[in-house]
């Protein structure tokens, strides 16, 4: 959970490590060895796991782990739940954070430190600890005295077949990522000037946000959305402890029935996240004013 990365460090790239020619020559064999060992350690298990997912000592090689998961029992429900939770999380995040950050950026720069601090705070409390507090809220609002009140209705809705409650919590968990993505976009753009120009020309605020701000910030809005989405697709801790069954929880439970399928789907979900993040990197690389390597923790 402490593992945050910043999207687009905002400023220009720091100078690369350049060593003098002599030391470069001395370094080379070591470098090669280190990179080779690292490649073996990181790629080896992936290849071995892929082999495991397609090879069976009784039946030989087959690809059912990659073709049969759609028909696996419960997969459809679980995956659909994860997708919907992901979309809801992205939507809530953007509706909440874009206006907030715009307001801070344009009008209340002094509030920026506060918004930043509170956006990064969820890193400090481990999800496995926070979720205990969430369970307290659930059990408190489940008491008899709330029966028939709007509180009970809302809580029932949030914990129904589609547990929207998780989305509300994921917005908080994703906040450090999404804050940095949006912040980098706002810093690197001329949104202040554009908004003033639009306002002077008589545009209303909703029009300004829809037709000026969002197009200007499309890269960082997309980054924020993809990061939040990737987080939801893989989130296990809160869903498991709150007894909901989106894709990751289903993946963990279903393992008893088909180990190969479980490993195959694990590889697929890693690959999916990887593609999502490569997309971010690709988009960030093309946009002016953003760093080439977006998954960095900002040091300043």
């Amino acid at each position: 959970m402490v593992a945050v990365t910043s999207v687009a460090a905002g400023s220009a790239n720091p100078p690369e490590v350049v060593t003098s020619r002599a030391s470069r020559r001395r370094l080379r064999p070591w470098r090669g060895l280190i990179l080779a060992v690292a490649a073996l350690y990181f790629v080896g298990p992936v290849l071995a796991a892929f082999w495991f997912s397609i090879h069976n000592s009784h039946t030989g090689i087959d690809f059912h782990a990659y073709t049969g998961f759609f028909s696996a029992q419960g997969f459809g429900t679980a995956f659909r739940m994860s997708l919907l939770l992901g979309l809801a999380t992205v939507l809530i995040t953007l509706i909440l954070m874009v206006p907030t950050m715009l307001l801070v950026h344009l009008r209340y720069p002094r509030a920026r430190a506060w918004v930043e601090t509170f956006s990064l705070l969820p890193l400090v409390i481990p999800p496995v600890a926070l979720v205990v507090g969430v369970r307290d809220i659930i059990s408190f609002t489940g008491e008899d005295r709330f029966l028939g009140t709007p509180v009970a209705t809302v809580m029932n809705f949030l914990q129904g077949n589609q547990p929207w409650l998780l989305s509300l919590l994921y917005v908080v968990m994703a906040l450090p990522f999404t804050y940095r993505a949006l912040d980098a976009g706002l810093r690197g753009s001329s949104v202040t000037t554009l908004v003033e120009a639009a306002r002077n020309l008589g545009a209303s605020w909703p029009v300004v946000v829809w037709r000026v701000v969002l197009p200007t910030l499309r890269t960082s809005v997309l980054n924020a959305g993809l990061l939040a989405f990737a987080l939801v697709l893989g989130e296990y801790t809160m869903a498991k402890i709150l007894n909901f069954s989106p894709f990751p929880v289903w993946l963990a439970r279903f393992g008893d029935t088909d180990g190969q399928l479980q490993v195959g789907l694990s590889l697929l979900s890693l690959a999916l996240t990887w593609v999502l993040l490569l997309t971010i990197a690709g988009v960030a690389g093309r946009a002016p004013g953003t760093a080439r390597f977006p998954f960095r923790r900002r040091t300043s």
Partner: protein
Amino acid sequence: MTTTRRRWRIPGGRVRLGWLGLAPFAAYLAVFFVLPSVLVLFSAFRRVDPDTGVHSFTLQNWSDSLHGAYLKGLENSIQLAAVTAVISAVLGLVLAYAISTSRRPFFKQLVSTSSAVLANFGGLPLAFLFVAVLGSAGVLTSTVQSLFGLSLQDDLHFSLFSIRGVELVYLYFLIPLMVLVITPALEGIRPQWREAAENLGATGWQYWRWVAAPVLLPNVLGSTVLLFCGSLSAFATASALTNGTLAIVPLQIDTAVSGNVLVGQENLAAALALNMIVIVVPLTLIYQLLQKRTTTWLR
């Protein structure tokens, strides 16, 4: 701008209502972050009398969470986090240096994206990846068995589902995390410093000992602290790998709240969660402090 300003004011008044625009953000965090956090603190010190149903304050949960199996769990957790943090800090630093000396942007991009996947979103899939490799029917397990006639479990005393096994899997996402957090610091080292040192007659060792190491040290220490926190609070990998049986704090929290709901277990879970928070929060502050020291030199 002046026309806009006027719209945010109550006519004749001096109160600006624009601040209210920050209210949704504040309210959202209050409900979904601050409230649960405070409730953990609160219910860690509450108990329900099983006979009368009366709530009262107590130190019992907290004391329970520091005795017996739970004390052992806390020790295991801290040991696990410390071992994995130190190993991955060292290995990650070496790896990050090897990568940062590369001149191929594409390669760096690939490493940075892959590290981000493993460090931030790996959790659960990594557990199954390693089951496929080192589990009882894993690829490596059966290869070692057929090639050398050795059983990982019996002859080499290695089990993926023990604390050693979990440590091994944690390295798989902690080393990439170290690469992610230390790379900016490595790239902040100016080539001029090296040139200056060499012009003054310094050897490679002297340059590292007296120039590079002092600049990097706060950052390396800070990153190690960060890895410690990440390792301590990780849940998904250990939960999936050991099916919740390993005695570490995050899994004990899960067992306490999702097992048969005994009276008071929720409060015990809150006390366990509070222990984690008490460890992690000061360490994060230390990390921030060390980061600040570093940025004096590396920008």
